[in-house]
């Protein structure tokens, strides 16, 4: 398989989907979620596209664990007491399975072929895992993990018996031969299905029933396989974790079967499922998971509602990137500067931070009468800001600083016109926040920036700001192609991006253009009046990573339903709307739309004479 180096695509190169497990391991920095996945229990990993679900699952495979070099790698290898079996999925695969017999076969017959294809796909993944355990590569630098020695004779016997159970006839009685025969079976399934289409309905049920290999149940076949392996390897009660990626793409019956499998009482089988936050079309996923006791599985959310929660991971990742690019021991802050962030109370504030706040407040006061009014009402003297401390400072200066910074950067004058000075989007922690802890975005942005750094010197703030903006624009290009849900009638539908622009524009007005409001809103709650169209659209935005769910303290991760929940725009979109990278207070979505004079009925419709965007 082609390695990462041959890709120059921002999103493609850092997409774990295209990488072998050992390649994923070469640059893997473990986020805190990873350690929860190491436990030998069912897990549901929820995150938008690009949040690292595939990476985390791939890092549970033997091939990845053995190749991984990190200060915590040994600890993690010790903690993983199962064999990871990664079952890949993507839209092309799903479409291929669903197309089997799509024309000419009745639903029941189609289901038989779809199940057979899925079972074969899983068994092939299992055999790959077995092959790695028994025949790992002799590459240097690998640290053995759960390797098994099967004598040649035992392997032959094992394969012969398993082939009999799975109704295969491998040309060579080896694990590799078994895998190849499963590939042949995939072709055979397609061929039999195509033939059935031509043969017609008469006697079809009997013909299909006669093909025993079409009726293997995946769970039964898997259990038979691992039991047999236990017998031949001498292991007893070993655990196997089946790692299903992109569950939301799978045909409904597969996702239903797998979510139900979380209730499995066979302790040898562990299921780790990855899916997007809003599985709107997979209602049974929501209902199945929602009905299960939380102790049956572990829910892991791969997003950071509060940007600071992602900083540790981002800093580790960027530090490692710097080390590999001969920046030596330079810290991210040395290369990108700090972001003048206010540290939590009790931690030393950077001197630059306090000076920056004061400068911005003075600058804003000089051109914003409404801000001057605020200062007066709160008895804040610009010449004595350093004297404001403790709780009062927290409730005033610290509270408004993000809004002040954005207004100062973008307000030209009291006429409320906006101007461009986006250098506020710079600094190490700003880059972390803009990335949302999304490894793909973060690696992409930082790679581009480091390539512009001369001789390991600091990257200018202007360059950082431009890169964050450019990455945001690339993201917008993707969002532009996602449609909003259907409306009735002949009205043309707008893309998802139009909805996001309305929301972002409404926030921009409140934060930047209107009179200064220390409590300007910057997030929204989907209230009960949101109709299905709007909810579905917001769900698409959530899955794409354009919206971030901000849960209450004790709320579970998801997948989620939207009503009553709080969301904010992804920080990567902030430059477009001139918004600060801060979690501002929520407002009801209906109120926000009403303030922008938008109705849900027309929100998604293009004007009849104009063109969107």
């Amino acid at each position, binding site marked *: 398989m082609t390695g990462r180096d041959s890709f120059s695509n921002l999103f493609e190169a850092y*997409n774990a989907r295209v990488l072998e497990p050992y390649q994923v391991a070469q640059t893997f920095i473990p986020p805190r979620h990873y350690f929860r996945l190491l436990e030998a229990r069912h897990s549901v990993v929820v995150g938008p*596209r690009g949040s690292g679900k595939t990476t985390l699952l791939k890092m549970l495979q033997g091939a990845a664990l053995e190749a991984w070099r990190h200060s915590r790698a040994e600890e993690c290898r010790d903690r993983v007491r199962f064999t990871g079996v990664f079952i890949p999925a993507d839209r092309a695969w799903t479409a291929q399975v669903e197309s089997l017999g799509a024309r000419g076969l009745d639903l029941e017959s189609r289901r038989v072929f779809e199940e057979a294809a899925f079972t074969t*796909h899983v068994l092939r993944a299992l055999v790959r895992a077995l092959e790695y355990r028994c025949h790992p590569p002799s590459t240097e630098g690998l640290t053995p993990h759960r390797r098994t020695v099967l004598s040649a004779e035992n392997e032959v016997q094992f394969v012969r018996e398993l082939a009999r159970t799975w109704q295969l006839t491998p040309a060579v009685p080896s694990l590799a031969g078994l895998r190849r025969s499963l590939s042949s079976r995939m072709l055979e399934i*397609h061929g039999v299905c*195509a033939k059935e289409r031509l043969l017609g309905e008469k006697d079809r049920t009997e013909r299909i029933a006669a093909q025993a290999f079409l009726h293997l149940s995946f769970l039964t076949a898997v259990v038979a396989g691992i039991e047999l392996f236990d017998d031949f390897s001498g292991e007893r009660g070993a655990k196997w974790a089946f790692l299903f990626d992109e569950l939301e793409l799978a045909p409904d019956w597969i996702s239903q079967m797998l979510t139900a499998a979380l209730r499995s009482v066979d302790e040898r089988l562990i299921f780790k499922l990855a899916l997007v936050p809003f599985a709107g079309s997979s209602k049974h996923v929501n209902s199945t998971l929602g009905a299960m006791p939380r102790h049956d599985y572990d829910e892991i959310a791969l997003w950071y509602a509060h940007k600071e929660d992602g900083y540790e991971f981002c800093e580790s990742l960027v530090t490692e990137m710097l080390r590999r690019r001969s920046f030596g021991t330079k810290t991210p802050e040395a290369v990108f500067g700090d972001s003048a962030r206010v540290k939590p109370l009790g931690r030393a504030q950077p001197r630059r931070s306090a000076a920056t706040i004061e400068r911005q407040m003075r600058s804003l006061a000089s051109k914003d009468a409404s801000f001057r009014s605020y200062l007066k009402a709160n008895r804040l003297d610009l010449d004595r800001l350093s004297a404001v401390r403790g709780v009062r400072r927290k409730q005033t200066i610290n509270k408004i600083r993000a809004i002040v910074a954005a207004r100062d950067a973008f307000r030209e004058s009291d006429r409320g016109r906006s101007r461009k000075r986006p250098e506020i989007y710079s600094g190490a922690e700003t880059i972390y926040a803009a990335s949302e802890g999304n490894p793909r975005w973060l690696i992409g942005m930082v790679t581009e920036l480091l390539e512009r750094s001369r001789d390991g010197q600091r990257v200018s703030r202007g360059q950082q700001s431009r890169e964050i903006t450019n990455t945001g624009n*690339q993201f917008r290009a993707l969002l532009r*192609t996602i449609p909003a849900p259907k409306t009735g009638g002949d009205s043309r539908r707008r893309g998802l991006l139009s909805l996001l622009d309305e929301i972002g524009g409404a926030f921009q007005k409140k934060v930047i253009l209107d009179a200064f409001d220390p409590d300007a809103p910057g997030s929204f709650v989907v209230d009960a009046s949101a109709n299905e169209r709007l909810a579905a659209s917001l769900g698409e935005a959530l899955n794409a990573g354009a919206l971030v769910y901000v849960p209450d303290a004790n709320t579970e991760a998801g997948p989620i339903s939207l009503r009553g929940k709080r969301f904010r725009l992804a920080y990567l979109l902030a430059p477009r709307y001139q918004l600060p990278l801060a979690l501002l207070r929520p407002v009801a979505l209906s109120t926000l739309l009403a303030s922008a004079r938008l109705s849900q009925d027309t929100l998604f419709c293009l004007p009849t004479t104009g063109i969107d965007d």
Partner: protein
Amino acid sequence: MVYRIEALHPSFGRHYDVGIVTLGYERRARFLIESGWLQADRFLALGFPDADTFSYRENQKYFLSLGVAIHSVDDLGFERWWATEGRSLLHAPTCRKLAIDISSLSRRRLGIIMESLFELERSIELRVDFLYSLASFVPPIEDSVIDVCEPITPFFAGWHATDAGDEPTGVVLGVGYEKDRAVGVLEYLQAGPSWVFVPHSGDAYDKAVNRANRALWKMTAPDMRLPYNPRHIFDLVAALDSLVSGIEGRYRAVIVPLGPKIFALASLMVACLHYPKVGVWRVSPGEIGAQMDRAASGEVVGISIVIPINSRQNK
């Protein structure tokens, strides 16, 4: 290989047993007959019941005046209709030279027709000339939304069965001048490596393609972009076949033909050559999309397939 692919014979367009055209809303839908390029003993026009806009009525009037048999059905109806009427046509011993004007034909209908040719068994050789009337340049409408992204037909979903089974999807993309649509497709398919065929058809068009795909150029290395000329279809088929041959064992190969329809035709031909391993997907703004009335530029290009006697692949 089921059938032979050949460059158009120099005498193409002179006379056919049957000519299939499209009753659509583009002016160029009637160009081949009107200009005399295409002559046949009988013509068949495949219409769309909800296409009554732009030049549709003029086209309809023209076809009726010539006695062209018109069959207007929606896409679902077309599939059923072609399964019977199209099958009769293709099996008729009197039909030895068939011309199909694909200029205004939808990709889905083209896929259905190609599928039937792939599965055709004949006792007499059949030559099928696919003709394409290049359009005069019309500036693009800024409309990137993807409403439909799926295999052109289930037959063209592809079926991947390499030894490992965990290969990512490799996308071969033919781009057009719809802004950012290509980028959306790559993200939707969660593409691994991507190869991009870039049409070069004239100054204004080339500039529009370049502008519309700026985000894509940032994402793809220059050596992954392959220029092609829509006028040289045979070369395009050869290039596409060569690329697909190289990647089909390593990736789940999917071709997505945006841009000129001639690329869609080439994609379907190559997918048949590699059946069932290669998928061909269609991408459309669906009901969201803007319609355009394209006129013929006067240039006609094409390619032939020859279905030999007793050719069916899966007999």
